[in-house]
């Protein structure tokens, strides 16, 4: 059992706090290119995700876990399709709580 590589819950605004660290977030997919996906974060900021060169079929929402490269891009290690019915507002609030007063439950 180890907690050595936790990933922080972030939205667009929180991403800048974790540059260079492992983060996780859910984005709404706007467009994709070879090797990268452009999406909108749960707080309506644009995020670019660089990932493996083969992009499998994507659903509307995509969870990305990876290293934050800058305040609007992530280098993905894993991504998971989160379907088409996902509530971004709930997730947004969760990010705020998980980076705020309940941070110790997560990181």
């Amino acid at each position, binding site marked *: 059992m180890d907690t050595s590589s*936790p*990933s922080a819950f972030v939205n667009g605004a929180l991403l800048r706090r974790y540059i260079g660290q492992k983060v996780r977030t859910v984005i709404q997919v706007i467009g994709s290119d070879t090797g990268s996906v452009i999406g909108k974060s749960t707080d309506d900021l644009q995020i670019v995700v660089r990932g493996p060169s083969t992009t499998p079929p994507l659903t509307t929402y995509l969870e990305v876990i990876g290293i934050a490269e800058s305040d609007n891009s992530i280098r993905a290690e894993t991504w998971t399709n989160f379907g088409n019915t996902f509530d971004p507002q*709930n997730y947004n609030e969760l990010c705020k709580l998980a980076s705020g007063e309940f941070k110790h439950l*997560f990181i």
Partner: protein
Amino acid sequence: MFSSSQFEPNSAFSGGGFMSSQPSQAYESSSSTAKNREFQGLVPVTVKQITECFQSGSEKSGLVINGISLTNVSLVGLVCDKDGSKVTEVRFTLDDGTGRIDCKRWVNESFDAREMESVRDGTYVRLNGHLKTFQGKTQLLVFSVRPIRDFNEVTFHYIECIHFYSQNSESQGQQAGDVTQSVNTTFQGGSNTNQAAPLNPVMSSQNDGNGRKNLDDMILDYLKQPACTARQQGIHIDEIAQQLKIPKNKLEGVIQSLEGDGLIYSTIDEYHFKHVEL
């Protein structure tokens, strides 16, 4: 929708079992003492919470988190390193973003085997299991694994962990105010500072109806302490007011009703009280 299938009847959200029976733990220095109520329901936790309560090193029975003895837990995360090589047991690691924990599932019937078939590496699952410490390592003995279909459940699980945690932190007399305020932004229920909630309204002497019930407990808990029961002449009401930090006038009415119920009695004069020991 998610919680009703996960929880046993005496669970957090039906307000049964532990919520209303949490005594004031202000006088207990450690959380795992005689006041530790046996909570048999399913606790939603993150792996980080499990590692923390393990490290806080309770030598007492089992792991304790927030004063609740932790046995059955519910987790949500990604399956990694699934090893199904043995016939009777499947091992894997669960990574929930806050840490990783080893899991084991005994496969005895075809139902179990089918359940584990659908679980692959990289699948998000909801796990219900039993925490076990073996040779210093904490492991999860899983009795239920379900792949997640609606990913709002992932958000829900973490919010539930926060909710459960903040509910129990309040009952330990910590700062309730800000915690419940912020938690309310995401979901209803569980707040106690403003509403006269059916759920645990702890320590709030502003909230008269519910505060009275807790005042009773607070006074009784204070008087039940060995230091107080040892004193022959009883405890003066002024001292109780000072120790509990509650104005004397609030205590007077409650003390009278406790006396009427036969739970405390006056000793040397009408201002000294002791707990009735049976």
